[in-house]
């Protein structure tokens, strides 16, 4: 690695810790920041500090929140009888963009993956069960990812929740809109057939 001035080398080193950023990308970003105005740099550093200082986890749903409750838990117009369980906070964005779901969310912060050392204790399952036990929820939608880990998590949760007498549903899996059946693999088609609907 060439010898950069110490502050620049330190910035490159810090940027390299970001996901997907290697040595070259870190250098490019560092040089961009060096050439940027002081105001731009201050805005960026303040934005990073604000994320660390002002954001926390919603105590009800574990979504990222500014203040006590997150925007969805605060919103009294949402249907509190339907709960959508997702793996990560950013999964909520994907569902919200559809504008088709008006219930509440619960974020697990991961999926069961013994191979990565993630068991039920590492996920936010305990407060999900407490939340369901409070009695207002009638349906739980398991919207974990359609991967092996996501499916195992959904199965595990359904076995915990079903005995409580709630309706437990799983989001559909299958052919992406705009693609072709010819190129779909057997598992995708099998899941699509399994999740077919009456017309």
């Amino acid at each position: 690695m060439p010898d950069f001035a110490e502050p620049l080398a330190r910035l490159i080193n810090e940027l390299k810790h970001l996901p997907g950023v290697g040595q070259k990308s870190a250098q490019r970003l560092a040089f961009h920041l060096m050439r940027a105005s002081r105001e731009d740099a201050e805005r960026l550093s303040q934005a990073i500090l604000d994320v660390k200082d002002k954001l926390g986890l919603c105590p009800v749903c574990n979504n990222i929140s500014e203040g006590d409750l997150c925007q969805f838990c605060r919103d009294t117009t949402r249907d509190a009888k339907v709960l959508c369980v997702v793996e990560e906070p950013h999964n909520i964005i994907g569902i919200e963009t559809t504008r088709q779901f008006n219930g509440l969310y619960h974020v697990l912060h991961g999926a069961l993956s013994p191979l990565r050392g993630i068991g039920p204790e590492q996920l936010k399952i305990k407060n999900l069960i407490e939340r369901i036990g409070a009695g207002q929820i009638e349906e739980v939608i398991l919207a974990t990812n359609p991967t092996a880990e996501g499916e195992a998590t959904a199965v595990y949760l359904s076995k915990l929740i079903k005995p409580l007498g709630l309706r437990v549903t799983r989001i559909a899996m299958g052919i992406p809109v705009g693609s072709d059946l010819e190129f779909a693999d057997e598992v995708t088609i099998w899941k699509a057939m399994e999740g077919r609907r009456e017309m």
Partner: protein
Amino acid sequence: MPARVSEAIVLQTYPFKESDLVVSFLTRDQGKLRGVAKRARRPKSNFGSGLERLSQVKMSYFQRETRELVNLDGCELIRSQFALLGDYGAAVALDYLAEISEQLLPAGEANERYFRLLVTVLDYLGSGAAGCVWRGVTYFSLWAVRLAGILPELHACMGCGNWLDNPEEREEAFFSPYRAGLYCGHCRRNGEMGRTWGLSVTSRDIAEEMLRKPIAQLAHTDWRRETAADLRHFLVRQIENHIERRLITAPALEAA
């Protein structure tokens, strides 16, 4: 090297960059390899569900001699394990098989027998027979240890050399995390072995049968979590001693 197509089993994937995956996979002809699957996390990727853990696929890839990671072009699914995920115990068992394969196998060394073992055990798990998870996992652990060349003598004491399976007086054997192999009760009492665990006569008989017969031809007995649990513990210890680290899926499997 030119583009290749190999029959393979996907062992593990790691997120890489925005939508790529680093994939560890065991091929029948080239051994364990790692490669980058570009855009594999996008819904319309070339890989579909083929990169899910322990999927059996025909993997197309390009290998350069100067690079450790191969470039994955696509894969054709032969057999998926997705149907097994309805049973949480089976899902954890799949993680267990993947972790042991990932840890025990050296990179780039073909091991056809190990590949066949994995395919056979996955077929057996897919059969859904009662107790198949525990029987399959035990069979796999025993043969994985044997194929890795680290299965100790199961019939003789490593301390005094006495025959543990003397027909007149068959006795429980013992193993320790600090010493290789099995020991008789006498050596256990007299030697400084620290903490020890027992390996019952019944479990040694099960191991003996598993080493002689294919999994589908094993005597039909009612297998539960407790069946041969001591044998699984013994085998996990052998693996952990060999790889010099703990298996993270082993406790999860026993708790599933």
